[in-house]
């Protein structure tokens, strides 16, 4: 297993965290991809030893504080996602590009579903809201995201 520079890993995750904070307006806001999840998925597939459950937990807690959301909401769903990835890690590394994208779509959907249930349990509102646009755009962004990080990784 290759060892990647942990600087690169953390820098890319922090940049993805920053991307999540950009204040888009109107419809741009609803279609904003879940950058942090993309970065954490990427590294937990490429470098599972260096980007594991604790990294996912740590950065999701940061996101919770930044978003002012229920403390541990993003943490809970992200840790679950990284755990799932670690379970099917070998398969994810072997699979074809399109299958990988589909699997990541399923993971992101699952993640959004967990957060929706947490929202529903913790608030008084009866409505179940799930932001499918964000999931969809995340899936569309994934190939480019992966390509970009692959290129950076090769250069360093």
């Amino acid at each position, binding site marked *: 297993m290759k060892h990647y520079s942990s600087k690169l890993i953390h820098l890319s995750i922090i940049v993805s965290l920053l991307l999540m904070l950009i204040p888009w307006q109107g419809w741009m806001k609803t279609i904003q991809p879940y950058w942090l999840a993309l970065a954490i998925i990427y590294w937990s597939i490429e470098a599972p030893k260096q980007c594991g459950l604790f990294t996912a*937990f740590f950065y999701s807690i940061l996101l919770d504080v930044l978003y*002012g*959301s229920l*403390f541990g909401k993003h943490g*809970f769903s992200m840790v679950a996602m990284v755990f799932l990835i670690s379970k099917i890690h070998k398969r994810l590394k072997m699979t074809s590009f399109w299958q990988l994208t589909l699997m990541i779509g399923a993971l992101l959907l699952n993640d959004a579903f967990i957060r929706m249930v947490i929202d529903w349990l913790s608030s*008084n509102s009866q409505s179940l809201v799930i932001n499918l646009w964000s999931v969809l755009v995340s899936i569309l962004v994934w190939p480019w995201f992966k390509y970009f990080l692959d290129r950076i990784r090769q250069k360093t």
Partner: protein
Amino acid sequence: MWSPNDSSLTQNKVLRFLLLEIICIVLMLADHSSKIAMPIRSAVSTLTYPLVKIIELPQNIYTFISSSLSNQQQLLNQNIDLKQKLSQVQIDLLQLEVINQQNIELRQLLQAKQKLPLKTTAAFLININTGNNDHHFIINQGYNQGVTIGQTVLDLNGVAGQVYSVDLESAHVILITNENHALPIEFLRTGVRTYIYGTGDLNSLSLPEIPPSSDVQIGDILITSGLGGVFPRGLKVGTVSELIETQDHSFKNAIAQPSANLNLLKQLLLVWSADTKNSGKETKNINQNEESE
């Protein structure tokens, strides 16, 4: 391929997974009480503060450049405009002073408690994304400035919301239009007291619990009643915009329009009531507080 080492490793992973998930659940449960969650939040916010600053930087540069590029004529026009507004406000203030004096005299006659003037400080919005929840925002004052949970936040037209979590240098404010928000109010004209709830829509608030015997009209002004001790009394909240017919006659329903301009919040005021120390209660406690009064 199977080895005992391997299985202990996977077990370890499961254990770690469960540990972290349990930590998350504990954090989520702890978040309901500010005493436990507050220190963790402010500790973590020292790490997140640089990120907020980085996102703010280009915006600050933009405002700096646009202000230094705006030409003199524009500034002069603005200056004249502001001077006119100021003189208008000063005239209003003159009249208010007389009314205020009369008010004090009347209160003395009635031997009523003197109403303390509200102390406010200005706060500015931090423009960062806060997820898909539109009904909350971040201000640039936090624990270091003495902000407490439950503190009232106004814009220049009326009540905007209240602080619901405090970081070290910033605070999260929940808008009165948030679905989970309830606020004790009274009708300025009739003095009838009830609750106003957020609807999840920035332009409407709902009043589902108006006593059936009371007289409600479109255009009635709603002010905070001060019950529950979270919001000080007498701040403008909104105006009744629509009456709703209900089948059962237990309560009257109405929809109100918030007076604060919640779509375009820019400058905000943090209210420091005389007993800010006592007002550290969460929204959810409002109901219980009223019953005890």
